[in-house]
């Protein structure tokens, strides 16, 4: 189901799916919450999140997985794993378990009771009845899963590769790559911790956590009379303003989803590439940088998010009449990232990042940054080309990529009989 369709029918479809596993009393309570939930008004993927509705349930089944063109929730987390499965049968078991767990967790419901002399069936951190809480869990595979272990090599998506360092990177091996990645997004962080612990408990001997990074985006309803805008990142700028519109399905089919036109194995249709980058921000230094310089570095106004050539966030930057970069510097982040020329049209990516704050560095500076996540139908034309153009940009003085990886998001599971990865296994049987 596409997002627009979902939103239009949110009251109905969300309810129908939320029913599973709830007793009648709870269904009633859910119905009330549901109808009171705020309506989404043409939200884009990186618009500031507006809802904390615990009963919000995104439908798991569909051609595509959730968590990509889903309006970004207030919290996100990427967890990369090593797959321990011994053979293909074990791998299939793993994919089925993950599908079953994600189905349950994104619908919400109750766990079966267990004899108290046993460990309880879940962590309990969300109480006896687990709310869906807007949870989406997106399953993606790393390039290393296509090595000799499971006989998948012949079906490897054409652009899937191991992430290599860019000139400004200082990659930390402990926070890079992985056989498999899960992107968790939800209204509240506790919901994805609960989901992660559930998944770990159900996959002993099959998965081992390699690294994880969580992040948030501020949940700030627009002030009365204020316009809705993209949420801000930790450098204080609105992030996501120029994202391709998720309302434009044809554009999503061209830029984000693998289709027939994309010269990929047939099993991969409906999937997408996910590039994840953990990018540290030197926030103290940034906060000591003049506002004017900050705005030139990005090519946008800090408060409004408007391009330097415009006055509102949604204005299209004008580079054609500014060939020398007098208004928008030629090396401004947005100008390099998207020069808005016909040749660079197919380099556009769908960004869906979260802000992270991890602690303190040894030098007493804050370890804060951007959990950069973007989706594209062609990893080389998308993230890799854009990052190559950004190499050497003035922003680099304030940022340091330290981790991440490239992953292939599996096509969705169509219904209850399907499971994530089924078509990949069949294609290599």
């Amino acid at each position, binding site marked *: 189901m596409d997002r627009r369709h979902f939103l239009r029918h949110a009251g109905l479809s969300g309810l129908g799916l939320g029913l*599973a*596993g709830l007793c009648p009393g709870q269904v009633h309570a859910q119905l009330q919450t549901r109808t009171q939930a705020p309506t989404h008004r043409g939200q884009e993927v990186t618009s500031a999140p507006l809802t904390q509705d615990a009963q919000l349930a995104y439908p798991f089944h569909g051609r595509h997985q959730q968590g990509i063109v889903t309006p970004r929730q207030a919290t996100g987390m990427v967890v990369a794993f*090593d797959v*321990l499965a*011994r053979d293909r049968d074990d791998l299939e*078991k793993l994919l*089925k*378990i993950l599908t*079953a767990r994600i*189905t*349950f967790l994104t619908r919400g*419901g109750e*766990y*079966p*009771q*267990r*004899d108290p*002399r*046993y*460990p309880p*069936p879940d962590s309990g951190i969300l109480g006896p009845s687990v709310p869906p809480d807007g949870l989406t869990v997106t399953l993606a595979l790393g390039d290393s899963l296509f090595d000799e272990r499971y006989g998948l090599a012949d079906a490897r998506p054409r652009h899937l590769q191991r992430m290599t360092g860019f000139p400004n990177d200082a990659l930390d091996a402990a926070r890079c790559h992985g056989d498999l990645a899960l992107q968790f997004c939800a209204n509240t962080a506790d919901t994805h911790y609960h989901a992660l612990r559930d998944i770990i*408990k*159900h*996959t*002993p*001997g*099959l998965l*081992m956590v390699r690294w994880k990074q969580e992040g948030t985006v501020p949940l700030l309803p627009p002030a009365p009379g204020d316009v809705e805008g993209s949420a801000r990142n930790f450098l204080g700028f609105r992030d996501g303003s120029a994202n391709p519109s998720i309302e434009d399905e044809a554009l999503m089919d061209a830029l984000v989803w693998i289709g027939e036109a994309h010269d990929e194995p047939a099993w991969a249709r409906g999937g997408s590439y996910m590039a994840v980058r953990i990018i540290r921000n030197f926030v103290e230094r940034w906060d000591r940088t003049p506002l004017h310089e900050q705005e030139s570095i990005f090519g946008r106004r800090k408060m409004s998010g408007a391009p330097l050539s415009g006055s509102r966030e949604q204005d299209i930057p004008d580079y054609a009449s500014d060939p020398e970069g007098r208004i928008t510097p030629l090396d401004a982040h947005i100008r390099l990232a998207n020069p808005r020329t016909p040749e660079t049209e197919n380099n556009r990516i769908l960004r869906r990042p979260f802000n992270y704050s991890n602690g303190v560095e040894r030098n007493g500076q804050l370890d804060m940054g951007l959990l950069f996540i973007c989706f594209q139908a062609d990893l080389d034309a998308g993230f890799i080309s854009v990052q190559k153009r950004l190499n050497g940009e003035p922003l680099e003085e304030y940022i340091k990529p330290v981790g991440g990886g490239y992953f292939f998001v599996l096509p969705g599971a169509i219904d*209850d009989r399907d499971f994530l990865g089924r078509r990949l296994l069949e294609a290599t049987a």
Partner: protein
Amino acid sequence: MKPHQHLIAAATLGLLPLAAQAAVSPDALVGPIAEYKLYVLDNLEQFVDHTEKFTAAVEAGDLHNAQALYAPTRVYYERIEPIAELFADLDASIDAREDDYEQGVKDPDFTGFHRIEYGLFHEHSTEDLNAYAERLMSDVNELDHRVQDLTFPPETVVGGAAALMEEVAATKVSGEEDRYSRTDLWDFQANIDGAREIFTLFKPLAAQEDADFVKRVDDNFDDVETTLATYRVDADDPDAGFESYDEVNKNDRRALAGPVTVLAEDLSTLRGLLGLN
């Protein structure tokens, strides 16, 4: 949950809702617990014995011999940790790691095996280790003394198998235990020995409740031991011990982590299965 999801979950976790257990009668536990106490006392006797030789080598300034005796001595402690850990004061002074102290190696409270390990394998010297050796010997004698009179609680004994697997999962798979000597595999095997001993003693009772469970646990123990065996210095001589943890390749670390987590999950249900609280 849809019914087929139950099945998947049940297959991995035994999550099916369980009515009160058919409950093993408490009398049935008496025999295995008595046998386990004998196992512990036997290992303790060896432990005291080996610690005497080890500390004597340290005090004699015989670096080479002290290094050689370090791992084989610890084995006896690692096997009986579920019981040894009941005495938190002694466990701290015998087996704490430098991470347990704010000032690390320099911390005046840091004593025991790992403090001596630091001297022998990091400083490559027996200098200034006499006080630690003396203290270790008296702590080990004290442990021996206390265990003799101890009544073994069934929950602790049965739960000990899971506790040992938690030890393995937390510090052995990552090679954090013996960071200077790199003799982690000795401890790894000893924890597995200790867990398997408990499991084997209660296996007939567990098999009455869930034969699949028993088979799965045995298979996973076998898997771990098979992988560990490839790192034995001499396949025909168990006393020759293991290669350095640094030799364990990435694939084998994964091959160990898999069954270890399944064992940790499975053995965490052993108490419930035997109807113990």
